[in-house]
């Protein structure tokens, strides 16, 4: 029950909800969508640990040829010698259903899209918890997730990111030539492995490339990312 309420709060947040009166129809649509989406989701994920080799304007993953450029991601991993590349997806059925609702009922499509986003984030949280649990004997913890496309961490790395993790074969995740993840409700992210005492303080909104246009920050909230 608790998870469901949390999901609902998240869905409302993605829908731009700021305490207005929610009428019964919308309220029931959200509840129905949550149930509907649960039946469509096929959660799959994969992750691997890599050693980091830092360079002036980015870093290499030691066991690969993969170079990750950008000050922001470098800063995110400043206290880490190893990092984890993870990817997760909800599968194609959710995408198809959103396309379907966009043709017949935009309100439902909007809610469905927001719900799917909430579900993939919640799934990623669980994956991260599992990874962190695997580190429990080492006194190490994980940083937050940092994804291609945020800050100056180029979205252009998406294809190579997936290739290093073997995502197409293992979880059916691909990227289009414009680096759009397909299935759409998917996430790729890097997590730094750090000593417990270095657990980073929350990242500030000022660092985000969406800061000037972010609907959340304009409303005095945070996106939760």
């Amino acid at each position: 029950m608790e998870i469901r309420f949390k999901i609902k709060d998240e869905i409302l947040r993605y829908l731009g909800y700021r305490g207005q009166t929610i009428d019964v129809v919308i309220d029931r649509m959200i509840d129905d969508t949550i149930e509907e989406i649960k039946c469509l989701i096929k959660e799959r994920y994969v992750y691997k640990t890599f050693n980091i080799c830092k360079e002036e304007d980015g870093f290499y993953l030691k066991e690969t040829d993969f170079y990750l450029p950008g000050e922001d991601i470098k800063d995110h991993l400043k206290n880490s010698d190893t990092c984890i590349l993870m990817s997760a997806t909800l599968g194609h059925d959710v995408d198809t259903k959103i396309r379907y609702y966009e043709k017949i009922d935009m309100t439902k499509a909007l809610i469905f899209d927001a719900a799917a986003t909430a579900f993939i984030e919640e799934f990623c949280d669980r994956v991260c918890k599992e990874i962190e649990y695997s580190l429990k004997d080492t006194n190490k913890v994980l940083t937050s997730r940092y994804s291609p496309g945020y800050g100056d961490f180029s979205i252009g790395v998406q294809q190579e990111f997936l290739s290093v993790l073997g995502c197409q074969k293992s979880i059916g995740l691909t990227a289009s030539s414009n680096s759009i993840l397909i299935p759409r409700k998917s996430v790729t992210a890097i997590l730094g492995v750090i000593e417990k005492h270095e657990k980073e303080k929350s990242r500030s909104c000022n660092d985000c490339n969406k800061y000037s246009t972010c609907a959340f920050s304009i409303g005095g909230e945070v996106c939760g990312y």
Partner: protein
Amino acid sequence: MDIREKLKNDILIFDGAMGTMIQNLGLKMGELPESLNLNSPEKIIEIHKKYIESGANVITTNTFGVNEIKLKESSYTVEELIHSGVRNAKKAIEDKDVYIALDVGPIGELLEPMGTLSFEEAYDIYKRQILQGVKDEVDLILIETMTDLYEVKAAILAAKENSDLPIFCTMSYEDDGRTFTGCNLTSMVMVLQGLGVDALGVNCSLGPKELEPLIDEVLSISKVPVMVQPNAGLPSVIDGNTVFNILPDEFAKYGARFVQKGVRVIGGCCGTTDRHIKALVNFIKDIKPQKKNVDNIIGVCTPTKSVIIDGVKVIGERINPTGKKLFKKALVDEDIEYILKEAIAQVDAGAEILDVNVGLPEIDEEKTMIKVIKEIQSILDIPLQIDSTDPKVIESGLRIYNGKAIVNSVNGEDKVLDTILPIVKKYGASVIGLTLDEKGIPKGALERFEIAKKIVDRAKDYCIDKEDIIIDCLTLTAAAQQEEVRETLKTLTLVKEELGVKTALGVSNVSFGLPNRGLINKTFLAASLYAGLDLPIIDPLNKAMMDTIKASKVLWNQDKGATEYLKSHENIKSIEEVKKESKESDRDLFEIILSGTKEEAKSVTAELLEYKEPLDIINDYIVPALDLIGERYENGDIFLPQLIRSAETVKSSFEIIKEKIFESSSEDISNGKIILATVNGDIHDIGKNIVKVLLESYNYEIIDLGKNVSSETIVKAAIENDIKLVGLSALMTTTVKSMEDTIEKLKDTDPSVKVMVGGAVLNKEYSEMINADFYAKDAKEAVEIAKTVLG
């Protein structure tokens, strides 16, 4: 010996993994394994040699990922890596009796509608690989580890149309019997054997133990030889490395069992080595190739849904302009949404196959057929029946259709049979044969039966099995040809009993010219079902007809235990309940829009139209309601879903108003036309669609070009429709470039056209940089911009 000959009498043994062997040699993750073809040929030759020594009689070139998409960032060409890959295989073989399979894997990007790659682009990518393989004289083409049936179709067509080589094809499944994209085993078998592959089956993703039930299913239905390449068990990660845990002997034990069950082509995938293949050769050396019993499945499919015609299945007939003024208008206006709504309504009403007919003299039927099929398949999971008299339209439709379709139709004329049947065969479709010929429809049952027989025989000449023939005995009108109505039913029974094929029939013609047509129709339908009709072509929204089918299914013992029938009667509301519910509508349109109840808006608008002019309804109810809703949204009193719901309610109301205006053909009342599109390379459509709903609620006519739209298409549509305002959407930094290109081309063509842009990565400054006229931060602002430009 030609490998097709060998396959008739022998078991073929393929090699095991290439990737695993290369990784054991120390290749880095993410590095291009095929670059070794040129840089370390000796290593690749060594791997091939090991497999040959272990007893494999087919080796696979190291070319799995050699396609122009995956090589884009590299310095290699497709041609040089395939050429060197084949050369290495040939060097390893020397003079031994071993075949070379050109390895062809997935492109790595997904096709539309899931991804952005078009079917035609995928075809061209594969064609390049095939042509080089042919040039280098490989013995066969192996298309493997596929998860998307549509992509497989592109690869097979590329192979068929550019070579005469045998094609072996395998797809990768999860233990639920689905690929990552949802393709099931029955659909795979139907489509692949229809396209004429020489062997088909499953590989990768699972070990032999987990694959066994899947293999059993494929063996039970596949008419072509079955191929299997399992992994060496399920993968597990140890110290960051993926390892597979099945040892050679256990792998071989399963392999032997598969061969005993009837598998004819066997090898290994991830985790298997020359030791696995050696054990396999050893375990199966004394097993003779098995003849297997195959259930002839009769049906059609999409990748994710197979419809087996083992009882009555309804074909929905509503996607057809004949006698429908609004449908014709939708076709002329390219109003895909209207057509999609017809499709959705039929599926909701219980149709299991949809007939698609878009024949109208004033439109390009071929282009429209392609578009309608693609659009329906992007949102609905239902097999389609391509209905046209033009062979070009049929072929283009079959080519881009994803799955196995029905062609409607051929008849007994030689010219028609000899034109259409080769197309049906090439694309592996089913076909409806009408019992008429150049002399018209014969009166008597026997003559009609003769035509049916001719069609079945001629299809056989073209190697089309009778399982893929459906005969339509043709319904005549009782009012004009009363005596011949019975002849249709007699023919039906004859065709079923003597020819053993399935039957289809459009039934509603029977009642033309008579009162209470519904009564005649359902009576005739019941009689046809009794006579043996399998595929009634009807309007599934007609409840009496659907109910007749449900009842007949009970009476003729198809609906076992009357399960479906009982289920359909569970939720039937009493008349009192329905009356009570419909009483709510004392609210006026203004309130209905505010509360956002779409269905209610339709009925209330229709009532208002009885005594009010359309423009008065708009001015008295719709405009004030929209103003209030807009204000509430601006003030933060309601949030986005509520705004959109009200906008959709207005849209429903407008639909009714416009229908009325169209019928009385009075003036156009829209506030102007706007083009909306999500730019090339981008598929984030939801933002654009929100803008669309809101603009439509303000009575702008929207030409929605969809997503991933090229600049040329946008410019062309702008010229053709004399457009003054274009709205473009992009969500990715990578696709804003397409937006900039489109704006440039639009301005070059017509400097007066205004462009508004929106999307998550944009802001005002950015939009000015790419020369947009307006930046719309949200849908509401897009409305304000439209008002400024168009009034």
